């Protein structure tokens, strides 16, 4: 294992510390328990947005703390959900009296820890709602599993719900729009290589020189199918097919196309995937109204990508376009 780290157990603390210094104009890092809040206090009366999860998915979530997106982010250990003693003070800090929305990716650990924290914050007088993100179509049979995972769609939920909160929507409205985004987004990923969790020191799974994992998650957990390597267009087809089957958009629908890098994929390859994905969506009669291409929710240095398709309505598009100013996403300001 070769990584630009010092003590494997200090990776999260040191990285968040560096992040806080690099973006001191935007965020404040609180230590022990560890969480990150917006530097500029949000407008009084604004609904607070808190998200969090295991580390190793940077820029998610701390990179999205700032104007028009999150009020606080709670990083756990690498690939391990954070604990209630972190989530509770983050929730309290994000509450200006209008209540707080937890944006939680659907993993047992995240769900259980946020659930506990929400109960306890509620007991401290904070009105907490939860938007559960479960957009990963790789998990086919949700009756007999922990349910679909929250992956790429999380970024879109955070952006759009964040814009709704910023414009002054109330707790019910922000929760509703967050859920609406989740209901309209589907994601599927592929891994060309595994990633190595610092404290484990060995790759999280083994892939042959000519194998890829279709339906990979963002934790280096194995995917659903292992197949021989294919070219980018073929892989893109394989990712889009279950997305479109599940979302079943109608011809003429407007969509946001999000091609996400897993951390170790050159931008040039993401654009090759994007290129073919646009073609497939257009051939299906869809209108690609908005796009996002880059490393926005990663799995350490994994090589691979995910594709998310979000069916837009006019309100979502307007909220997507609304100004945002965070370390990792910025426009209009």
């Amino acid at each position, binding site marked *: 294992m070769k990584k630009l780290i010092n003590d494997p157990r200090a990776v999260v603390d040191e990285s968040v510390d560096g992040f806080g210094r690099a973006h001191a104009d935007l965020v404040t890092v609180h230590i022990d*328990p560890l969480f990150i809040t917006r530097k500029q206090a949000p407008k009084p009366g604004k609904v607070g947005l808190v998200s969090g999860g*295991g580390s190793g998915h940077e820029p998610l979530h701390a990179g999205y703390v700032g104007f028009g997106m999150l009020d606080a982010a709670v990083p*756990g*250990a*690498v*690939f*391990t*959900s*954070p*604990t*209630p*003693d972190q989530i509770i003070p983050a929730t309290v800090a994000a509450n200006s009296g209008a209540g707080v929305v937890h944006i939680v990716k659907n*993993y*047992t*650990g995240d769900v*259980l*820890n946020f*659930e*506990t924290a929400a109960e306890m914050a509620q007991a401290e007088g904070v009105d907490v709602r939860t938007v559960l993100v479960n957009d990963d179509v*790789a*998990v086919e*049979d949700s009756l*007999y*599993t*922990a349910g679909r*995972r929250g992956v790429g769609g999380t970024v879109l939920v955070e952006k759009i719900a964040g814009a709704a909160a910023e414009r002054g929507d109330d707790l019910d409205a922000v929760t509703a729009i967050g859920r609406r985004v989740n209901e309209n987004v589907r994601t599927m990923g592929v891994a060309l290589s595994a990633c190595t*969790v610092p*404290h*484990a020191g*060995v790759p*999280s*799974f083994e892939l042959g020189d000519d194998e890829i994992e279709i339906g990979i*998650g963002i*934790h*280096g*957990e*194995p995917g*659903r199918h292992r197949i021989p390597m294919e070219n980018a267009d073929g892989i893109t087809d394989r990712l889009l097919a279950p997305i479109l089957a599940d979302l079943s958009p109608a011809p003429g629908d407007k969509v946001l196309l999000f091609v996400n890098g897993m951390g170790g994929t050159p931008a040039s390859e993401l654009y090759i995937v994007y290129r073919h994905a646009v073609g497939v969506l257009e051939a299906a009669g869809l209108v690609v109204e908005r796009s996002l291409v880059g490393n926005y929710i990663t799995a350490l240095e994994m090589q691979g990508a995910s594709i998310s398709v979000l069916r837009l309505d006019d309100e979502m598009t307007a909220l997507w376009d609304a100004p945002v100013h965070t370390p990792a996403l910025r426009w209009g300001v």
Partner: protein
Amino acid sequence: MAGLGTDWAVAWLRRSAAVVAEHRVELIELDRAIGDGDHGENMDRGYTAILARLDETPPATPGAAFKLAAMTLMSKVGGAAGPLYGTAFLRAATAVGEAGTLDSGLVAAALAAARDGVVARGKAESGDKTMVDAWTPAVDAAAAAAASGAEPSAVLGAAADAAEAGAVATDPLIARKGRASYLAERAIGHRDPGAASSALILRAAADAASDAASGAPSGAAA
């Protein structure tokens, strides 16, 4: 019939810490195969923190020791295992209340309460390939042993035996809860990491009890 006191409870936690540290890599490997490779690290971080807190604020009763463990695991472990083990110890603490020593019946009741806590939080059923598959046989064996008049240490011994068998029995299963559920058939042939860590911890409880019964110094590492 010797009841198990605070010394035992503390010895159990210390011994668990040692055992978890010793098996850290093994638990990571199990989780790497069908999960995300952090279970050993998570548990080790949690029990290391327990050791520190035991030194800071030594508990006065077994129940207080369980509560200390619950709060520490809840705040230091994270992931799925943190809230599950946290709830387990919290329910166990409630089950034993203020008791200074635990007789066989109370030991069995504490284990049952712990298991119920895991089920209440995680909603897993037996056969879902989770830590419940170690706990439920352990609870059943403990209840049977206690009913047949066994000593507390023998009750824990029976629980540990059953937990170990239960962990082994997760190998052929398909997971229906937790991360391993994403793998469907590909989880077959792998042991559930949480069931494995549960068996280790229950064995530590039994070993701490035998040491206490045989008068060995409490708190000795395995």
